[in-house]
């Protein structure tokens, strides 16, 4: 078991160490991808946060991500209720349809949208990308929501009915609040799915509607713009902070309430 644990730690290091390399690189004053850098400065970040060519895509991505999240939830929540609570002809087919965007390779869809949106004049438009990302967000949101709905205790709703709440009131006051964590998680997945999506955005978003991943991808391909290091590091630190924040909150809570913690055991 001991050697197994060592092995697991080594594998975890293989996963973690390459990621952390992006942080020192973002402070590199070298124009080339030299590691370790020979000199450090803040310049990459200054460029990243002041250059319209980077800020525009960042805000585009945020806007597209938020719109995608709302649209995905609006479509996936009722569909999940239909899948879990009802039996109807074509239920299996519907389930398959809702999962399909997760299965089809994105390059295939990129081609499809390139052809289709070209005809609809939706290429290089926000609407087009939001539609695409919503399609991609529906499967994962539906998976999360149906799982939560299946474990939802129907007696909660029965109790609300018996206490005099009509169907819609029950939905707003009981069902939705109980499902709120799942809705939030589903929304988060939809947002990140959109915020990260590269392949289709590369093919269908234009210069003005470029997303951050598209800008990064093109920057990788065209020139080795050192600002990319700041963009990468910025995204990585965002994830790191999001993961460490709950941990930090728990740690401070524990140290302040250690007596209560002992009693709870």
């Amino acid at each position: 078991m001991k050697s197994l644990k060592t092995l697991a730690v080594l594998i975890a290091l293989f996963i973690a160490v390459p990621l952390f390399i992006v942080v020192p690189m973002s402070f590199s004053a070298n124009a080339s991808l030299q590691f370790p850098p020979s000199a450090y400065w803040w310049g990459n970040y200054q460029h990243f946060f002041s250059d319209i060519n980077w800020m525009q895509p960042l805000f585009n991505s945020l806007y597209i991500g938020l719109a995608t999240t709302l649209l995905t939830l609006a479509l996936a929540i009722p569909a999940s209720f239909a899948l879990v609570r009802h039996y109807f002809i074509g239920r299996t087919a519907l389930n398959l349809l809702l999962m399909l965007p997760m299965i089809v390779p994105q390059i295939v869809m990129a081609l499809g949208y390139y052809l289709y949106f070209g005809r609809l004049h939706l290429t290089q438009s926000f609407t087009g990308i939001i539609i695409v990302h919503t399609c991609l967000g529906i499967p994962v949101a539906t998976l999360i929501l149906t799982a939560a709905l299946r474990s939802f205790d129907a007696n909660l709703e029965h109790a609300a009915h018996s206490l005099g709440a009509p169907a819609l009131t029950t939905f707003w006051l009981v069902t939705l609040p109980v499902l709120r964590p799942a809705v939030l998680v589903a929304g988060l997945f939809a947002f990140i799915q959109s915020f990260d999506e590269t392949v289709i955005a590369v093919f269908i978003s234009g210069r003005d509607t470029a997303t951050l991943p598209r800008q990064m991808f093109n920057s990788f391909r065209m020139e080795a713009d050192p600002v990319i290091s700041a963009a990468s590091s910025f995204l990585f630190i965002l994830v790191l902070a999001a993961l460490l924040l709950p941990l930090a909150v728990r740690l401070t809570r524990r140290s302040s309430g250690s007596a209560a913690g002992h009693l709870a055991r």
Partner: protein
Amino acid sequence: MNETSSLQGADGVPRPGGTTAAAGLLRALLKGPLPLYLPAALFLLAFFIVPLGYVVVMSLTEPRPGLGNFTALLGSRHFLMVLLQTLQTAALVTVCALLLGYPLAYVAAGPARRLGGVLLGVIALSFWTSFLVRTYAWMVIFGRQGPLSHWLASLGWRPPPSLLFTSTGATVAMTHAMVPFMVMAVYAVMKRIDERYVRAAQSLGAHPLRAFALVYLPLSLPGVVNGCTLVFITTLGFYVMPVLLGSPNQQMISGVIGDQIEQVLDFGAASAMSVILLLVVLALFWLYHRFVGLDRLWSR
């Protein structure tokens, strides 16, 4: 909201106002699940199935109607090599991700809570970090002035090789990117394996290694199947990493399709390749579906 209300709507009790049969049917449909799923279904039909259909139609009609695109591709040594290379790479990445992911998931699902938390934290960190960021990290590592070259040079390898723009480099990066998927799939199943099974096997006389092989391993297999399918299918369609890190001479199928769209502008060939890739993926998914059906027998 529930079945009873939709049944009551459907049972055709005459309502005041003398509704016709058609109006009654409409009403029943509106009370049922239809309004719940119709928006999502129509949205996906219009914005997912139709563009997918465009690809299929294009593959059969551009530039001429018929199976010409497919016969040309299947007769092309180059395309078959690309397809084979893609399948090989996907298989290699799957095996490597399993070899790295299984032990990590095993320890994470085990009794060492704190270590398990740290391991899962690392996996989550990698999982949530954008593919592009991970791609950038590997560009630095594999670069001519990167740490790997430094290290190899210090070992006396001159001039040090660079893995950037080689298929080996792309494979390593893809494996790195796929390990979190594998771990999550395997861990989800491992976490549900009651530790009492292994204890029971030991109390019945099985050496810990044998208890693992006869009890734990078979019980974790559904997770392995899930993880391998997920990783294999994802790698087959991988675009970003092979294009940015891989060798331009040994492209994977997604990269070739991308070139056809952007540079060659041969939409017929691109569509036919896409259809072939799609068929491979769907076939694999169908196989997986049968496996999952079998797994259901084991769960209580």
